[in-house]
């Protein structure tokens, strides 16, 4: 099994200027008085065969992005192309065919399985919907899928409450695989699981990518797991992508102060390193996405903020090949020099060498 097979640099999914706004309605007439800009103009491509990590704090729009890609939320603006086909213009029949190829693994394995359906029936449902095969074939396929995710075929007649969290997540993965997708949105698939179970499920997800040739959008807030699993990572803040780069580059040479702060905020499971590590503790909270700051979204908390940041919003620009960041202070962060400046580098401690 070789995960490092060369990516053919063809885009599988292309998201252009995607916006998802949720209206805020007030009063007797339910008039729209504003909008929560959950996702506010993001653009990225996911290449065939890669795992694309999307990371950010709660409310940053990462889950909304995942759902909008699968057309579970209707985008307010922007385009989503899957394998060269724009999804917005598809009729419902073609969309159904397309959906077969794009599936989702959900965060909460306790809420995302129907408690009244046996595990076998849960996995069989997408097979019956998307193909016309006889019962015996469906059964064979269910058994095969259960084996693929590491469960015994005997459990097909059992119900979700008889399983532990990790096993349920395996069932959720088998269901996602049932329609033979090319692309899966993994929406925090391990954050509800215990530490010793997380590694099992992540290994399964990685093995499947290699064995079946899947492409993933992996949404998470656990930067350690994102670093482990992703080829490229995008960092979101308040509905915008603030930085996007190859994984190691992002973790070692982040250009956006938010990314640097986020990485520095996560404790390392080693007391010797933790004792030496200096960290940037951001002040204050994430602003309300219904009323975002005028200039740079991060300007209210940024340790490097200057006047320009408060009035002009920086664009996401490519500073090095494949490394995009949105910040007015990139020069301070050391673009071109290849290293963050001393002040931030010290704060990075072990992260940057």
């Amino acid at each position, binding site marked *: 099994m070789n995960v490092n097979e060369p990516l053919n640099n063809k885009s599988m999914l292309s998201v252009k200027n995607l916006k998802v706004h949720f209206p805020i309605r007030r009063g007797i007439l339910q008039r729209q008085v504003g909008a929560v800009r959950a996702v506010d103009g993001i653009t990225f491509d996911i290449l065939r065969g890669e*795992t694309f990590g999307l990371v950010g704090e709660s409310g940053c729009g990462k889950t909304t992005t995942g759902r909008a890609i699968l057309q579970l939320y209707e985008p307010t603006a922007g385009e989503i192309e899957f394998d060269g086909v724009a999804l917005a213009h598809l009729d419902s029949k073609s969309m159904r065919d397309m959906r077969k190829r794009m599936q989702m693994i959900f965060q909460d394995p306790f809420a995302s399985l129907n408690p009244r359906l046996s595990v076998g029936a849960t996995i069989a449902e997408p097979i019956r919907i998307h193909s016309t095969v006889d019962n015996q074939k469906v059964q064979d396929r269910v058994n095969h899928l259960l084996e693929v995710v590491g469960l015994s075929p005997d459990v097909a007649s059992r119900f979700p409450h008889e399983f532990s969290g990790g096993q349920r997540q395996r069932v959720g993965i088998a269901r996602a695989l049932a329609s033979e997708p090319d692309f899966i949105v993994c929406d925090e698939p391990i954050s509800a699981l215990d530490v*010793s179970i997380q590694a099992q499920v992540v290994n399964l997800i990685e093995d499947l990518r290699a064995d079946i040739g899947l492409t993933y959008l992996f949404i998470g807030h656990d930067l350690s797991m994102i670093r482990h699993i992703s080829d490229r990572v995008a960092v979101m803040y308040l509905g915008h992508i603030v930085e996007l780069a190859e994984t190691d580059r992002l973790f070692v040479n982040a250009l956006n102060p938010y990314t640097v702060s986020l990485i520095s905020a996560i*404790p390392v499971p080693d007391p*010797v390193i933790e004792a030496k590590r200096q960290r940037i*503790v951001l002040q204050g909270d994430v602003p309300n996405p219904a009323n975002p700051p005028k200039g740079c979204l991060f300007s209210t908390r940024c340790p490097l903020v200057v006047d320009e940041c408060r009035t002009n919003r920086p664009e996401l620009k490519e500073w090095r090949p494949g490394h995009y960041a949105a910040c007015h202070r990139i020069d301070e962060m050391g673009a071109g020099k290849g290293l963050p400046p001393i002040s931030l580098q010290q704060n990075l401690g072990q992260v940057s060498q």
Partner: protein
Amino acid sequence: MNDVNRVLQVDGLRTEFHTLGGVVRAVNGVSFHLDRGEVLGVVGESGCGKSVSVMSLLQLIPNPPGRIVDGTAFLGDRDLLAMSQSEIRKVRSVEIGMIFQDPMTSLNPVLTIGTQIAEPLVEHKEMSWNEALDASIELLDKVGIPDAAERINDYPHQFSGGMRQRVMIAIALACAPPILIADEPTTALDVTIQAQILELLNDLRHSEGMGMILITHDLGVIARLADRVAVMYAGQVVETGSAEDVYGNPSHPYTQGLLESLPRHDQEHSSSERLTSIDGQPPNMLDPIAGCPFAERCKYVFDRCKSENPNLFVLNGNHSAACWWDIENECERTIE
């Protein structure tokens, strides 16, 4: 118990829950201690009994179904488990402060936060309400809430999650207790807010000289704050020692497995590298376990593990682990 710095000594604690499905031995013979000004990290997965252990100390286990069946917990020379309701009520907040995981459900939504911080001061420190409210403003200031004088009149829903946790900490600190118990204090918070709260707890521990029991499943959080660590599994402490020993030289196969299974954001990963996982899952606590509770998942398992439950065995100094291998063999563990 002759150590002058010892503030809390728990021995042989057993707590059971009598449920329709049978008896759950949630805490099965747990011993630990806390010295003045030190942070003890208690780490384990959900259901391992880490919260129930400390809730038992304060008699916060609902009875029925829960029952503390054995053990002692000495706070100085008084046994917390033998106290009457009125005595333990005074211990809570005056001598042991507590903060919980979810600051929204642990604050009263219909009282202003000023009232909630002042209440223990009026109750236990015989302050007047006015004095207590003034003291609340100082406390809010100390935990880093801006404009404290105005904000004491606000209700919990007017605060963000991180700010609510600060309010909880202010309440816990109100009577300046020598011990603070923090049960997953940052689990419900975002990482940048978690960093703020951990910073605050670290500052307070130095400025107030508080002993702290920090319960969490996050090995990173423990590494950040704890001086000593107790690793729990299936209602038992399976390894305990200084943070350096437990992380740097983990001895119990469960501790080793946990640390190996964690990806690190400060280290390069090749994408072909698999995580080392612990196979299987924690035992069902309704089923009686004859031997070591980790035996089923342990790669070093041998006969004795399946029939007898090992006690903590001192490896060196204050580093101990409960594993038959260490007790029976002098050599390093190897798989045949």
